[in-house]
């Protein structure tokens, strides 16, 4: 598990010590990425894409958001998305795929976080415990916003929409002021995660797609 080189899983090819650093540090510091990070990365990528596709399929059955406990056609809405109401059965496979993908992400993400914590990789790379810090402040903030805040929040609000889970942990839904609020927050967080995903893909492409892909597949960029 020796992790000597740059492991910029979230920010491939970005300057590692801030804006003043050379543009392609990976050429100087050979990148090595453990198999565990690579495997969980692609599991999460697959799971995330599954979640987005199935999330849209589920949303299309009722593309309208509410605030509070309840909400239905005939009640005031918070936001009417410019999408058609599609009651053509796609929410059935949508939900099957959503939960399968969620389990993939929960398992892969859980392994990744446990590994990152146990090997102190998180502390080293992202809490800025190295001198100089491995990533810029902006990179670290983004990372923490996504991993520590957005991921748990999207899981939390997803679980809050489950009547069975809410019967065991009512506070999970009451903390948002109701089931429809949890649904709206779930949607908003999902949108932020999609933005993050797109930014991530743009960066991967802009900083050398082939080398970056090789780095995340083979563990080395060259």
């Amino acid at each position: 598990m020796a992790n000597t080189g740059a492991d910029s899983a979230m920010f491939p090819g970005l300057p590692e010590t801030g804006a003043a650093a050379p543009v392609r540090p990976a050429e100087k510091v050979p990148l090595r990425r453990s198999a565990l990070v690579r495997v969980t990365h692609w599991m999460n990528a697959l799971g995330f894409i599954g979640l987005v596709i199935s999330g849209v399929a589920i949303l299309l059955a009722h593309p309208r958001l509410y605030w509070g406990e309840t909400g239905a056609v005939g009640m005031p809405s918070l936001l009417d998305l410019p999408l058609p109401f599609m009651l053509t059965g796609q929410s059935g496979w949508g939900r099957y795929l959503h939960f399968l993908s969620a389990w993939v992400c929960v398992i892969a993400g859980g392994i990744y976080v446990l590994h990152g914590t146990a090997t102190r990789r998180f502390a080293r790379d992202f809490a800025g415990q190295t001198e100089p810090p491995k990533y810029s402040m902006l990179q670290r903030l983004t990372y923490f916003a996504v991993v520590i805040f957005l991921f748990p929040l999207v899981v939390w609000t997803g679980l809050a929409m489950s009547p069975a889970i809410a019967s065991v942990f009512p506070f999970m839904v009451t903390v948002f002021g109701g089931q429809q609020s949890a649904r709206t927050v779930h949607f908003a967080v999902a949108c932020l995660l999609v933005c993050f995903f797109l930014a991530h893909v743009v960066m991967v492409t802009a900083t050398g797609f082939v080398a970056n892909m090789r780095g995340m597949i083979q563990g080395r960029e060259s």
Partner: protein
Amino acid sequence: MSGKISRRKLITAGLSTAAGAAGLVAAERIANRYGLIPPDHDGLYGAGETLTYASQRLLTAHASMAREFTRRDISPVFPVNGPVPARAAYQRLLATEFSDWRLIVDGLVERPARFSLDQVKSYPSRTQITEHTCEEGWSIIAEWTGVPVSYVLDLVGASPRARYVVFFPFDDAWESIDMEDARHPQTLLAYGMNGGVIPAEHGAPLRLRVARQLGYKSVKYLSHVLVTDTLKNIGKGLGSASPEVGYAWYAGI
């Protein structure tokens, strides 16, 4: 030397595969015994369903109660999905205010029975104001009055071998629930809604209420309740009509 390493790797891989396979078989046996495998467990989606169902069954093992609300919270609207059954049998009963309607309860029971609506209404009732969550995404709050399914199961002497209760309506949307949900205190055979009788479009004369699952599990227009230890020979063997059209059997979500 590299041959030695690869042989060691091969043995390790072989042993861990065997251990993994044995572990899976053991896990399946245990999961089956404790009722942690849903009837629509086949295929790739079935893996996700099984994880969801099993983990929720472990979490809800102590009869967790769905949240209940006050009369003030009752929603001003209640959308209706699907028409009232068109079958002549139902239309005739509807026209005569269900005076000849009977609920058949049979299967793994000591005393199969046919209950009239008045009989059902004479049993100890429970009134609850709960949230109805539609799989489409909307949700509303309504008040329900009915007899707990658990009471009826005791009345007919349901066998300890029974694992599921199947609910057949006057249309094709039959469903089944496991014993944990069937015995749950908030699982009702409801005849009252928001202080009055259930209107036809909401499932008259009697409908199921499963408070801890999505709305589609709460079958309307009931005619027959079957107590069983297996769902394999009913319909396509997937547990209910929902998986046959692509919707999950377990909808605790």
